[in-house]
């Protein structure tokens, strides 16, 4: 039996280890494996900083995956936003494997982080920051198509970053519903061809995404039907996850307006969902401020209760004042 040295053992444990010889990067550790690539922590020797490297690690006979990874890097490079992980470099390793380097984010994935945040308003504010990043991408004509807790990182300084744009789709002009303004001057790479949709599996297109977070039209592989509202569906599922503080708890405990926002965002038909991410975010903000939300029609009692909750101190002060005034009047008449 082959004796494996300690070095060989370590190499096999990160068995996709790529050949970084002759590059500016020194491999530090294996981080995770995705659909088509491996992510490593590495050191950029030139700038003496830690970076994350995503390296293609599947057989790529026709070069399709290579263009996909390059395309992902170019999409990310166009999306300069505090909520989207910045790309530093793209290139090809000595072995011919394409890679890109990006900011190394130290922190926790949202699915792990969320359980630590007790306050629901604080959790909802995290969600609003995810919305900011997604709305920005939509404005640039980019759909994420795989929004889920494991693709969101919360950094050690509380920064929220939307990761893994490997399934992103670049929309043609005016493809986003509801007339969101597309910034088309960015000349995003490969705008015409979305290589991720090439293989026909369902008869319409490839099914890509994550069950539970994937919109019904995406699950059916109707790639031509997918627009910004598909991401809004995923955001709705994400909102429910965040609002309840993880998968262990029940969503029925959520207040009705919040449930209504989730329900509207995750409606079966895209036409019944919010048409833009900003509308969804606005409803969540209104909810946080104790104001009526567009997704839910309150009855009188609910409106009164919300009004009371929002102005509780003032109402109690006025009531106390009136009671004291009444008592003073009574004693005066005696």
């Amino acid at each position, binding site marked *: *039996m*082959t*004796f*494996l*040295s*300690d*070095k*060989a*053992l370590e*190499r*096999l*444990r*990160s*068995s*996709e*280890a790529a*050949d970084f*010889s*002759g590059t500016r990067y020194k491999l530090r*550790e*294996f*981080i*995770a*494996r995705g659909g088509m690539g491996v992510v490593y922590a590495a050191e950029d020797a030139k700038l003496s900083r830690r970076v994350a490297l995503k390296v293609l*690690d*599947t*057989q*790529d*006979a026709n070069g399709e995956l290579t263009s996909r990874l390059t395309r992902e890097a170019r999409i990310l490079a166009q999306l300069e936003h505090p909520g989207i992980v910045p790309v530093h470099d793209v290139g090809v*390793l*000595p*072995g*011919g*494997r394409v890679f890109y380097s990006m900011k190394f984010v130290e922190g926790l994935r949202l699915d792990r982080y969320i359980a630590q945040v007790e306050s629901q308003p604080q959790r909802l504010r995290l969600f609003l920051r995810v919305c900011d990043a997604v709305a920005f991408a939509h404005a640039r004509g980019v759909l994420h198509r795989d929004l889920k807790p494991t693709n969101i990182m919360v950094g050690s300084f509380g920064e929220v970053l939307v990761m893994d744009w490997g399934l992103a789709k670049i929309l043609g002009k005016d493809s986003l519903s509801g007339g969101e303004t597309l910034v088309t001057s960015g000349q995003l790479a490969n705008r015409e061809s979305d290589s991720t949709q090439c293989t026909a599996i369902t008869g319409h297109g490839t099914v890509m995404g994550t069950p539970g977070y994937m919109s019904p039209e995406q699950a059916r592989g109707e790639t031509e039907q997918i627009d910004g509202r598909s991401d809004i569906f995923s955001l709705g599922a994400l909102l429910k996850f965040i609002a309840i503080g993880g998968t262990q708890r029940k969503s029925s405990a959520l207040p009705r307006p919040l449930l209504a926002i989730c329900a509207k965002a995750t409606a079966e038909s895209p036409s019944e969902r919010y048409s833009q991410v900003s509308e969804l975010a606005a409803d969540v903000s209104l909810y946080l401020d104790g104001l009526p939300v567009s997704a839910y029609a309150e009855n009188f009692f609910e409106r009164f209760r919300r009004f009371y909750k929002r102005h509780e101190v003032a109402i109690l002060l006025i009531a106390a004042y009136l009671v004291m005034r009444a008592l003073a009047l009574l004693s005066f008449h005696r």
Partner: protein
Amino acid sequence: MTALGESFPLTRLSVLAAARSRDGAERSRALEILFSSYWKPVYKYIRLKFSQSPQDAQDLTQGFFAELLERQLLSRFDPAKSRLRTYLRLCADSFALNELKAASRKKRGGEFAHLALDVSAAEDELRAQAIDPASIPSPESLEDFFEKEWIRSLFSSAVEELRRVCEAREKQKVFQLFEAYDLADDESISYGELAARFSLPLTEVNNQLAWARRQFRLIALARLRALCESEEEFAREAKTLFGVSMQ
């Protein structure tokens, strides 16, 4: 994965469940797998921790596995409380201590006596690692040592299986590439040098190595799965072994 089944039971039963099975054939096959996965780590551990001679360590190793079977120690294992290898290491510890205290150890082995231990290979490995028992400073280091030896044992058998898979599919060159790059001690070798040595285009070196690594990982994970009691334990172990989430 077809080739894996020839030498490894990819049934729904884990090795532990099979070891407790009423079906004699299933049970003995499971015990053989457990034995083949763990004998080297146990042997080396006993050799180092108790400073035993190769012959005595061999007797103790066989005796330990016999004890495991006779006293049905596996049925007491609770995956919620510890990992299997930790449990086995502690059992081996207690067995070896008792045997050495009693000083009446006799050659034993029970069902395992017929399984030849390639002690000379294990001794060669210890020499290659240049491990001096006196240099192991603490019990924690011995735990780490046992852990590493368990990984080495698992990976070595997975490499051997990969070799067989490559031979069966007439991909001997792929295995040679894998051996030259992934198993070699020389870390300076580049894909370019491999391409020149094997007269292959660079992209072919990349693709073939990617295939070999993927197969290796599949084999190693299949072996690991068989050694785990539950999916949860498997997910934890896979994370420890490869740093990946098996979701």
